[in-house]
């Protein structure tokens, strides 16, 4: 059984006991434990079920590479699925549950899948998605849906807080093992600003467990001394529990720091996302041990040899009483020695190599441990845990030679450098055939902005797997070469290959990869997707090299020719909370408020988002529907006076001696001829000819224009102006300024508008002094006002701009002065309906990026006198002058109903795709309270030539509704009401 040893455990504090919950059962551990070590200490060797076959799964590893021990941690708003028990630090009251099983971990109904493994061969999903379809829908999908999925998605809103952190350094060292600490010390001594990230809570990496000396002293002493030295230096920052998740271009690195996962009582954010810009990155990311492929290598109790000794040395936990070690290298002998030193039994070391005479094998033999060379594992005995192992000759087909009872197996297939980060930004790898791993090729490193290598690699990550290879003055037993072993035994029969797991989490076996090769899969990337090898949450940290070795063997080609799959960030999964950081809730994105926002809020406005602004859609009274409110607002405005907050309208100043020339290029109209004090409606097109914005241009003085843009367009149009000024006409003497937020703008609209302003008193707003389409400056009720006689409703209308700081008071003054005239605030919907009643176009309704002004009958706003304007050349293209382009008209349903928005006008026949032909579409459609019926605008083939013709529009329910083509100006076509 697995249990806590009587002594030992360099990381735990035995003087204190912690309680934690595992599947509703209370267990005990110590500070310093991981959840995995504490589970093993309580003999919980079964920790989960695999994804496809629901096979029993035990702990395999002791670090981030763990594929099996994925658990749900926490409860309610603190619940998080798929957390690795091997990296979860134990604390008092920790709650954990196993996942991917039903009804219970011990008895799982899905395990029946494993009885018929031929049901889910490689490419299962692809094959059944295609054929037979009915079988998929009625049989596979319902069954798989119920059984599939790792963990449960949290149901509650995340109760924790997260933050982002920006950091800059000359040298970023990733990994706080011996190699990383050494690199950090060298850089720090050169005076560089150094940042060291270590993903675990401990400095030193594997070395304290694996042993060795530096200058005659234990390596642990060197680690302590070096950490202390670094911590004393002002130019060094050190962070534990902080993983470098990914390296990106030009030295950009994402770090992921776990601040309170191990101490939930601690205040502050739970995770921190580091956004690091490093001058140079040193990856000291170590190496990961590989499993061996033998039949039954997934049965709980089969672990990596390094993990077995980690649990013994670090946590004082024995994974089993009788541990068989199986290896192809010297390093695993350390595990046998550690097991023996802990007072446990090593029935045998099974070494696939013909001989093993290095220092470590000799030490094992001297300790009285039996070493069986040239031997492999024929089969592991056991179901939910290992009960024994059958041995065979490694060279043969796997006939059992003898059986050893045991309850744990420590396996080692050699080590693979962690090359992930090196590879993220294009660092290349080379295959080291001697040592059987891919290692970074320093001659093909990632380069930075200056073309020089931006990443270097040290230690085990570079392929230097022993202490003396990393540190001067270090000593450790010399190791003899390993022998690559990709299958055990070499000639294993088909039934054995069916039981050799490569990917524990996704249930991919040697037989699956071989089948994929047989079916013609040659590319490692295709095979990965076809078999799902390495696609689990561990991203193939254990399975990658073994899988591609099996594939290479099946394809009869050397490993480098097969290559590796692409390494992508993050190195291990990071929380969505960390990615979001503080950007959640109210500060997810900024909210732009007009100076009058608070008044609208108090008036109970129903809001509409417009860009980052919030604008009142309407102001419903108690018990009033939105539609009724809109109708009331329109009627009040048309019969009396309405009040509109138009502050969001874009306002851009264009100033300078060449401003007129520039405005002529920006707008399709002639703007240079506009007299100071006058207003003109203008259209702006892209260089591609399409209408992009519209608005009223005011000439403030000879040198100065004020360009009004749409609410959503202000920033975009300002950028458009700047682009042309800076990159094309940079010698023109013009500057622009976006003054949108410097002014509050209020529309006073309706037949009684003038009376309201006259009551306020101040400047002359009579028709004689301030006629339609003019502008004047003065004071109104003591406010500094710019008054524009412009109208988007067809009524007598004054748009009045006051400095933003005076906006709210001015709104209140207008409301008070207007009270006796029944002044009524109105929102965006009333604005839209009134403009549609007048046949005024709206950018984004009548335009969609494919519409030119000519489509909308706006030829009158396109100057014929100008040689050039932005978009003019594009509008000369044959497609733009095609008489078949759909043109704007008004539409009236025969029955008075409102046409469905976006509806198409149906035509006879079908188009090239066999779809029903169409001859137009609705661009705006509303109920008009003024006319008491539905009105619409639309683009229709030959529309203006087909007045009074009836055409049919499709409806959502599948039928059609008939509408008559009419003039788009439904209300006051002569324009008499606005010009008074």
């Amino acid at each position, binding site marked *: 059984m697995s249990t806590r040893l009587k002594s030992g455990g360099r990381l735990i504090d035995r003087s204190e006991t912690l309680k934690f919950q595992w599947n509703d059962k209370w267990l005990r551990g110590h500070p310093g434990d991981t959840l995995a070590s504490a589970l093993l200490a309580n003999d919980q060797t079964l920790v989960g079920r695999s994804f496809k076959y629901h096979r029993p799964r035990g702990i395999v590893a002791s670090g981030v590479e763990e594929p099996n021990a994925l658990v749900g941690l926490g409860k309610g708003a603190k619940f998080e699925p798929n957390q690795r028990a091997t990296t979860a630090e134990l604390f008092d009251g920790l709650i954990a549950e196993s996942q991917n099983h039903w009804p219970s971990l011990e008895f799982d109904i899905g395990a029946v899948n494993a009885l018929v493994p031929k049901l889910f061969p490689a490419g299962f999903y692809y094959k059944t998605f295609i054929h037979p379809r009915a079988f998929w829908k009625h049989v596979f999908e319902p069954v798989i849906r119920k059984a599939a999925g790792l963990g449960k998605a949290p149901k509650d809103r995340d109760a924790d807080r997260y933050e982002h952190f920006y950091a800059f350094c000359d040298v970023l060292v990733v990994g706080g093992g011996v190699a990383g600490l050494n690199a950090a010390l060298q850089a720090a001594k050169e005076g560089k600003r150094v940042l060291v990230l270590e993903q675990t809570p401990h400095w030193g990496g594997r070395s304290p467990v694996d042993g060795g000396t530096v200058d005659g002293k234990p390596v642990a002493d060197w680690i302590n001394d070096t950490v202390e030295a670094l911590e004393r230096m002002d130019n060094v920052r050190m962070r534990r529990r902080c993983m470098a998740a990914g390296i990106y*271009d030009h030295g*950009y690195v994402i770090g992921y720091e776990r601040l309170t996962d191990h101490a939930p009582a601690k205040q502050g954010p739970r995770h921190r996302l580091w956004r690091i810009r490093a001058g140079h990155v040193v990856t000291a990311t170590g190496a990961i041990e590989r499993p061996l492929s033998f039949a039954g290598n997934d049965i709980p109790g089969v672990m990596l040899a390094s993990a077995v000794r980690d649990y013994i040395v670090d946590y004082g936990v024995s994974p089993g009483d009788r541990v068989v070690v199986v290896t192809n290298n010297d390093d695993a002998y350390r595990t046998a020695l550690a097991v023996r030193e802990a007072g446990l039994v090593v029935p045998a070391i099974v070494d696939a190599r013909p001989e093993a005479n290095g220092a470590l094998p000799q030490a094992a033999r001297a300790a009285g441990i039996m070493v069986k060379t040239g031997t492999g594992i024929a089969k592991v005995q056991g179901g939910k845990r290992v009960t024994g192992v059958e041995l065979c000759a490694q060279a043969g087909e796997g006939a059992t030679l003898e059986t050893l009872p045991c309850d744990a197996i420590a396996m080692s297939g050699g080590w693979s450098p962690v090359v992930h980060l090196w590879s993220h930004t294009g660092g290349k790898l080379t295959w080291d055939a001697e040592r059987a791993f891919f290692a970074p090729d320093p001659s093909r490193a990632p*380069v930075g902005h200056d073309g020089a290598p931006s990443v270097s690699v040290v230690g085990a990550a570079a392929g230097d797997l022993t202490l003396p290879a990393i540190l001067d003055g270090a000593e450790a037993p010399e190791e003899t070469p390993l022998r690559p072993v990709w299958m055990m035994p070499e000639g294993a029969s088909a039934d054995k290959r069916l039981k050799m797991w490569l990917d524990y989490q996704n249930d991919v076996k040697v037989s699956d990869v071989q089948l994929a090769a047989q079916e013609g899969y040659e590319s490692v990337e295709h095979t990965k997707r076809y078999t799902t090898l390495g696609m689990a949450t561990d991203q193939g940290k254990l399975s990658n090299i073994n899988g591609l070795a099996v594939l290479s063997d099946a394809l009869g080609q050397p490993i480098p020719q097969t290559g590796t799959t692409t390494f992508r960030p993050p190195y291990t999964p990071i929380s969505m909370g960390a990615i979001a950081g503080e950007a959640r809730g109210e500060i997810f994105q900024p909210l732009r408020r007009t100076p009058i926002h608070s008044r609208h809020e108090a008036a109970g406005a129903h809001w509409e988002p417009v860009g980052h602004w919030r604008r009142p859609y309407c102001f419903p009274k108690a018990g009033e529907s939105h539609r009724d409110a809109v109708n009331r607002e329109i009627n009040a405005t048309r019969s009396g006076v309405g009040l509109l907050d138009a502050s969001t309208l874009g306002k851009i100043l264009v100033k300078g001696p060449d401003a007129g020339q520039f405005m002529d290029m920006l707008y399709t109209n002639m703007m240079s001829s506009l007299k100071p004090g006058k207003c003109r409606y203008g259209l702006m097109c892209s*260089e591609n000819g399409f209408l992009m914005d519209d608005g009223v241009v005011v000439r403030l003085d000879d040198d100065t224009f004020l360009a009004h843009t749409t609410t959503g367009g202000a920033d975009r149009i300002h*950028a458009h102006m*700047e682009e042309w000024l*800076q*990159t094309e006409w940079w010698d023109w003497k013009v500057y622009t300024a976006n003054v949108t937020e410097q002014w509050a703008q209020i529309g006073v609209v309706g037949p009684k508008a003038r009376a309201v302003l006259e009551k306020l008193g101040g400047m002359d707003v009579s028709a004689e002094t301030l006629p339609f389409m003019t502008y004047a400056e003065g004071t109104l009720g003591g406010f500094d006002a710019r008054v524009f006689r412009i109208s988007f409703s067809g009524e007598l209308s004054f748009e009045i701009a006051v400095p933003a700081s005076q906006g709210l008071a001015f709104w209140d003054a207008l409301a008070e002065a207007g009270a006796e005239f029944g002044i009524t605030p109105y929102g965006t919907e009333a604005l839209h309906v009134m403009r549609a009643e007048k046949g005024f176009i709206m950018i984004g309704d009548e335009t969609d990026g494919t519409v030119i002004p000519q489509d909308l009958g706006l030829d009158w706003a396109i100057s014929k006198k100008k040689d050039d304007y932005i978009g003019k*050349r594009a509008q000369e293209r044959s497609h733009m002058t095609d008489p078949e382009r759909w043109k704007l008209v008004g539409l009236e349903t025969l029955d008075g109903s409102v046409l469905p928005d976006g509806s198409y006008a149906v035509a006879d026949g079908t188009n090239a795709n066999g779809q029903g032909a169409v001859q137009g579409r609705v661009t705006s459609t509303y109920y008009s309270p003024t006319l008491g019926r539905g009105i619409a605008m639309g683009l229709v083939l030959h529309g203006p030539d087909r007045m009074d013709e009836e055409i049919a529009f499709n409806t959502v329910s599948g039928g059609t509704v008939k509408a008559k083509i009419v003039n788009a100006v439904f209300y006051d076509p002569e324009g008499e009401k606005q010009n008074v």
Partner: protein
Amino acid sequence: MLLLTCPNCGVAAEETELAPGGEAHLKRVGPGSEDADFEGYLFLRKNPKGVHFERWRHANGCGKWFHAARCTVTLEVFGTYSAQTTEPPKDILLKIDDKRPGWRG
């Protein structure tokens, strides 16, 4: 994430501060031009594997446009320079000649 130095304000700007503007040194073609010339100006863009001259705007910074000479393969930046020019500066061209012999071919 690229790091480009804005020649207008001198800031070494993160890519998130920048807005890309596509190929640099296009010559505007206006009314009366041939269709093929206009198509070339508005739509046809180089997509080289290697040296590329491009436009960037320091959008979330000083707001100004500038040019960058960059390798699209290694992301090496040969230099950034003013947007107010019709061709890359000599010193940057010489630097590219040095680092990417034969690139003009």
